[in-house]
């Protein structure tokens, strides 16, 4: 499917979706509240986005505008049609919460645990939301831009 066709399909279910075609792939911004039904639609309906190959988060607080904002970034490919899209969901940095998609894509379970561990994003209804790489009593979230650890320096 071409980007234009994908766009038409998405507009049909997400009239408020914001598109961005500057990157390599089509990007869609979705509201946090609409994310879960949209994810289920992506996985099971016409687009058949069955392969979630990258799930990550970006902390925008160190940019020039300094907005307290997180962006969840999901990269999808369909192994049936071979098209790729990027879905982004903006989160409030002070209270980052989003619905889990680990029931749609099993790989999300580990990836979401990693994001929870390093960014502190809370995934609602996740089956096993614990720290993945750091110890359970670790304080802070290392990939946030304001994280400083004077003992074990990560920044150079």
């Amino acid at each position: 499917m071409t980007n234009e066709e994908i766009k038409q399909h998405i507009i049909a279910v997400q009239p408020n979706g914001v598109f961005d075609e500057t990157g390599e792939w089509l990007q869609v911004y979705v509201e946090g509240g609409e994310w879960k039904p949209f994810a289920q639609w992506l996985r099971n309906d016409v687009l058949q986005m069955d392969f979630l190959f990258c799930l990550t988060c970006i902390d925008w607080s160190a940019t020039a505008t300094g907005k307290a904002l997180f962006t969840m970034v999901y990269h999808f490919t369909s192994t049936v049609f071979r098209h790729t899209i990027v879905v982004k969901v903006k989160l409030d940095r002070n209270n980052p919460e989003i619905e889990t998609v680990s029931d749609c894509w099993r790989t999300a379970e580990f990836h979401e645990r990693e994001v929870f561990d390093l960014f502190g994003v809370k995934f609602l209804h996740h089956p096993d939301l614990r720290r993945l790489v750091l110890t359970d009593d670790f304080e802070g979230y290392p990939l946030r831009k304001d994280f400083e650890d004077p003992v074990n320096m990560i920044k150079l």
Partner: protein
Amino acid sequence: MYRETKILEVDRKVSPTGGDLEGALVINIGPQHPATHGVLHLVITLQGETIQKIEPHLGYIHRSIEKMCESLSYRQFIYVTSRMDYLSAHINNHGCAMCVEKGLQLEVPPRAQVIRVLMGELTRIASHELWWGAMAMDLGAFTPFFYAFRERETINDIMEETCGARLTMNYMVPGGVMYDIHPNFQQRVKDFIQLFNNKIDEYDDLVTGNIIFQNRTKGVGVLSAADAISYGCTGPVARGSGVACDIRKLYPYAAYDKVTFDEIIETAGDSYARYLVRIKELRQSVRIIEQLIDNIPEGDFQAKTKAVLKLPKGEFYSRVETARGEFGVYIVSEGSTTPYRIKFRSPGFSNLSALDHMSRGCKIGDLMAIMGTLDLVIPDIDR
């Protein structure tokens, strides 16, 4: 006894799918265990000898490479990625260099493209060799390990001569490769290929056709195609389940569109299928090298770049096929000399997440046969 009860209560809470855990036994494998090939820690719930649940505990070698890269320049950060999947160092570097080139819209000279592919395929052979030896060793055959290392040593010597290092080569730079190939390179690779073709037959005689090996791997750790996709598995793990996912074929990069080779796909989905995929991939890598080794184009080995690289504002993603699967680099740039955020999508991380699903219902003795064919490199998973 006290500790056992305590863990079981937690398990019941977090894993409703874990089945009846009454009378179950919880054992730890690792983080210091010869069969996990690194600091991987598995907490296994057993019912008798049957695996009910496997919970990987990660982080013993987490170095926060993604955070480190945020304060390194676009030239520097590539070197850190050799330390992730150290058996596919060239290919990791290649993926990162490609991502920076995408941002700079830099054209890489054909000579560099071909050298990159040659190095990548040599790396793949070396990596599969180590896997083959270690896998057979996990299942109790010690001899193959020495056979595998004998040939791998030759590749390491070739690498040492051209790149100056044997394991973490750091040979790829944005725009090409760091220096031209050594004058002996072509001849030595040709000698190696000639010798190696017979060696793969020897591997088949030693292990592939071995009845004990087949009995231990066939029908063990079955992963269906749909599950492989859902768990994000890539590389030989997914191709053993019948999923076509070779990035070299689907999204050809460097010189892969100029060579002919087959994407190896097996459909059984068990450990033996994953084994066959890797062994057959060795022959395909040899095929690629044979086509390119005499046809390295003349010209520059590196494009001209500025001393300080600045990526324009935006997001860039590049993907390459390492020996373990799809390696992705996601760079978010704010227009400065360092990446604002960088994410490495490592193949091992997703492949490991399928381990629990594949092993449930298998016997504890089968676990090594399953883990062996996942070909885990722990620093790649932890990052």
